[in-house]
């Protein structure tokens, strides 16, 4: 992969992480974590660790986002701080 795309993905990872911490809406934070995991999956795939990328895509971006959403629906959507 071209290093420009690599840099763009890395920047997006950092942006997603910062946004997930700062956002007030917890549902949005869950979705941002999904996006973060998907970017990480792309990075693993670029580095040739395809098995890790596969796990990251299925566990990180897939199931854990669903679990976050279920937890948010059953608690509250807004955070206090």
């Amino acid at each position, binding site marked *: 992969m071209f290093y420009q795309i690599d840099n763009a993905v890395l920047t997006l990872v950092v942006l997603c992480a910062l946004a997930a911490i700062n956002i007030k809406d917890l549902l949005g934070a869950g979705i941002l974590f999904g996006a973060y995991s998907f970017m990480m999956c792309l990075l693993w795939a670029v580095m040739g660790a395809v*098995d890790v990328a*596969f*796990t990251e895509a*299925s566990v990180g971006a*897939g199931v854990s986002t*669903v*679990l976050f959403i*279920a937890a948010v*629906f*059953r608690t509250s959507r807004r955070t206090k701080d």
Partner: protein
Amino acid sequence: MKILAIALCLLLGGALVFVVGDFPDWGDPMSPPNDYRLSKHFIENTMEETSVPNIVTAVLADYRGFDTMFETAVIFTAALACFFLLRTWGRRPSKPDNVYMHLLTGVHVRLKHGKTLSPQSRTFARVESEILRYDLVTSTVCRLMIPFIQLFALYVVAHGHHSPGGGFQGGVILGASFLLLAISHDLRTLRERFPEVKLMYLLIAGIVLYSGVGFACMIYGGNFLEYEALGPLMGVTPVMAHSLGILFVEIGVAMTVMATMILIYNYISSLGTYERGL
């Protein structure tokens, strides 16, 4: 307190960035993990020793199979912990009301004393409660997609030693397909196909299958999880027995992981009652 936390974060982050500079370059053949004789052995001899082209799976399920067994046990323990923490047993009516929705108008009908309509009815569909919306587009699209997702998951499990994938990934994808069913329809649809008891059996069966393969190796004269010993039993060469042993073990992992994913989601979404989903 907040200043202290920020200072601590900056200090640890700075230390991390400082240490990363000492890492070997990416893909450096002379770096310690690439240069050590163990990794050389794996790269050069995996194919002759196990006839598994995917070295990652061979290392995961064969060379360090004992480790992976206890990784599966960790997932099993996670499911048990969720069961003990989240599961609640409320008093449930022996004849609960059934709620049906008229598909064309969206009007809800509540039938008391456990009366039911024909499940084949094309005008009424059973829903969990009056609050839930039944969306024709979402449920139809998901119903079309789920079989393909499951087929792909089974491919990932069965083909894990030839291509990326394996028990963990395949199990998660298989579990995710059932979560899609629970989200697009409702929890009752999933519960009818997969009662809690069946999931528990699956959870236990996976880890029993894994350790059972290990004990079978011991019975046939090998060490624990030394798949070569199973060669005469399955009628294949010892090298091929490694490949087949990895497949059995991966199936066990997939069963446990799948049951864990579904159980955790169901407990969270139904507040531990296992009755009504989101």
